[in-house]
């Protein structure tokens, strides 16, 4: 073989726009299902509910759904980062509750304390989680499971073993963060939308975001390419703690009190939402908007189950557990087929 041009190389793969190499029609179909399956399901669910129940598309009901989705969505936002790095954070439910109680207690000293105190405490717990996982290389599920227990312990300690409920002054600025409305839409919804935009920009457009994907996609390769693996991991668990604490604080502002029994099982809801939204539980792939869709889908299903009335709200868990299983099986199959390719 003789080479005699200045660009001495023959093309290897010709890949033009709509025709990626090795992507058959079924491949692309499954990729589409992964990316937009949740959205399609959401639209269908909303349409079905709209047609079936007069009470579904009312202003009140949608308002309610939006606000109650907001808190879970903020938790799911942090969880998305964690799961993309290939980890899991089971402590968010406890941190959510702890954040709410700390915010309600802190609100007597002003809005700044009400916001900063939960952020500081929950962020610190997330940071410790991150250190134990990234530096000491302990398994994420067991570290965050312990943190779940520890955070609940702190919560009980702060509230006289759960007997004391701190109230938020209804007229304070902090309360308006939860109760106020802008353009007829609840303040928590606006805040959530803002956070999601910021989160999406960070994940897609910042160098940190690239590291998050790289660490989850192939940790060894990421390290060899110079990504700060340990720092990235520590950062995502800190972020998850911050998100859970903030969601708890906003929830306290909405309820104008710090309720101690909230948040248990929320970690599972958040994980379900993220995974249903198309993020791979094995890491390396996912997107913020999907998690939002996942949260909305869960809340619509919940709402429909409530509307039916005769159905117990526990069906919600059956459905989301079943969803989770189906999505995970599909992901594993997709992943395996691609590896063979």
């Amino acid at each position, binding site marked *: 073989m003789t080479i005699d041009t200045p*660009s*001495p190389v023959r*093309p290897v793969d010709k890949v033009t726009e709509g025709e990626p190499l090795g992507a058959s029609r079924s491949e692309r179909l499954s990729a589409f299902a992964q990316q937009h399956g949740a959205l399609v399901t959401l639209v269908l669910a909303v349409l079905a509910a709209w047609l079936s129940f007069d009470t579904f598309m009312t202003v009140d009901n949608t308002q309610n759904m939006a606000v109650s989705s907001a808190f879970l969505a903020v938790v799911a936002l942090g969880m998305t980062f964690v799961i993309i790095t290939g980890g899991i954070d089971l402590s968010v439910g406890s941190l959510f509750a702890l954040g709410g109680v700390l915010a309600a207690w802190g609100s007597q000293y002003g809005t700044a304390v009400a916001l900063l105190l939960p952020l500081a405490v929950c962020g610190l717990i997330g940071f410790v989680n991150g250190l134990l996982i990234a530096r000491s290389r302990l398994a994420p599920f067991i570290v965050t499971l312990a943190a779940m227990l520890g955070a609940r312990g702190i919560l009980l300690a702060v509230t006289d073993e759960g007997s004391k409920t701190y109230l938020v002054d209804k007229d304070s600025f902090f309360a308006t963060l939860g109760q106020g409305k802008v353009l007829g839409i609840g303040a928590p919804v606006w805040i959530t939308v803002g956070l999601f935009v910021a989160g999406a920009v960070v994940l897609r*457009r910042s160098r940190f975001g*690239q590291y998050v994907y790289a660490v989850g996609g*192939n940790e060894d*390769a990421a390290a060899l*390419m110079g990504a700060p693996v340990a720092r990235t991991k520590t950062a995502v668990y800190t972020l998850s703690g911050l998100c859970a604490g903030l969601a708890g604080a906003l929830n306290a502002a909405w309820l104008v009190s710090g309720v101690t029994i909230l948040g248990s099982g929320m970690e599972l809801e958040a994980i379900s939402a993220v995974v249903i939204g198309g993020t791979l539980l094995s890491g390396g*792939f996912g997107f913020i908007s999907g998690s939002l869709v996942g949260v909305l889908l869960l809340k619509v299903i919940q709402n429909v189950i409530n509307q039916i009335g005769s159905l117990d709200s526990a069906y919600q868990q059956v459905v989301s557990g079943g969803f989770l299983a189906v999505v995970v099986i599909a992901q594993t199959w997709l992943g395996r087929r691609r590896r063979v390719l």
Partner: protein
Amino acid sequence: MPSTTGHDTRPVMGAAVLSVRGLSKTFPGVHALDGVDFTAHAGEVHALIGENGAGKSTLIKVLTGVYRPDPAATPGTGVITYDGSEVEFTTPLAAQHAGISTIYQEVNLVPLMSVARNLFLGREPRGRLGLIDFRRMHREAEQALRDLGVRVDVRRPLRELGVGAQQMVALARAVAVDARVVIMDEPTSSLEPREVATLFGVIRMLRARGVAVIYVSHRLDELYEVCDTVTVLRDGTSVHSGPIAELDRLRLVSLMLGREVGDVRDEGLTNFSGNHDTEAQPILEAQELTVHHQLRGVSLAIRPGEVVGLGGLLGSGRSETAKAIAGALPPDSGRVVVAGAAVRTGSTPAAIRAGVSLLPEDRKAEGIVPGLSVRENIALAALPGLSRFGLVDEARIDRVVDTFMKRLRIKASGPHQRVGELSGGNQQKVLLARWLAMNPKVLLLDEPTRGIDVGAKAEVQKLIDELADDGLGVLLISSDVEELIEGSDRVVVLKDGAVVEELTGDAVTEDRLLRAIAAAPATTADPRTRGGDDD
């Protein structure tokens, strides 16, 4: 850019870029590198070759900051000189920043991220607010890849590319950081011929730019096609360094394997006795085994009481052949027939039931179960046969374990010692015992004596002999030419995943083996035309 016409016009070699002198690296109990000398010059393609355990990968890891070299015994030795000054790389990243890029055998990129993101990870072009400027990144990524002759949509996930194109992306990343030295560890092992051609084009371009390329491969044809100089490592030392054109293939193979052609040697240096040829019907026949990128229609037969050697360089498909026969590597096509009956391929239990047992090459990862005792490791495969209604028959296990520990002279503090604590030789004997307890018909032994001390080696060799005498069919894989020649009654020689020659009777000599391994390829046309052997 001056045109480099063909590979015969070699540019004048530049100054030494990266060199080591008297470099040593020891691990607990192992002398991986023992005084290696190696120098890579600017604008040369330097082949680094050697058999398994010769120290290639250790040398690369020392050069790229994964391992730290041993402290020098005498001043001036044991140090890495880069660009005229002594350096010490503490991390792979430090080596990369200094301009030494490595492309690993397995592509080390993130498959789920886009091509462009992979190319630019950690050095993305950033615009306003510190956000990544994707338009610029995609443009530059496309340009960088086009320079290497690859036209792909850089927005697509990396995994949608073929392995060759992925390799090119890794290369583009290595080149983009203004590398002075590019190390390629078996870059062609999973490439199609035309992708190899593209790769070679890139290598020549790098050479023209004055980059030092260190090229690790076992494919002799490639070495002669693309390399200027060669350094041969053996047993942790550099045994030869010089222009590759001055060495013919036979000489090169001799250096790698440490055997001289025409050397007259006394038999009996190993513990193998004479031959045990039989005229019996084959107990095992492998027919046209094919595995994509690994085996191309390998056929061979093993008769009872016969030791068949499997010769060839590293990467020629020796271990893959054994694994395909043992059901551990599912073949795309081909059959395995044991005692006249076809065995379901791709199933280890089926192969074991048929009486085929494999002693894997990677003893520690795939052979022993380190946390379990000697006793439990020996009984592991035979467990169902040593149980009644799912309950383990301890007395029978004790008898079996006792028999084999004595027969194979396994040295352990007792049957309850953890296998992970034993010496390599004794671990190997435990594995042999595991299979012998199954009464196999055929034993596939992949490097049975590697990494075990001399005494144990002799014992294992003697055992192999005894087993064949007892009527077992044995397939023996060994990088130790002496062991292979003296231990085998026949030797099947593999090259690039296909059988190239079969040595029988008086032809089983080191000379003939080396010549068979070194033989220039007939063509790369249709491998199947020369896959068969002559029985």
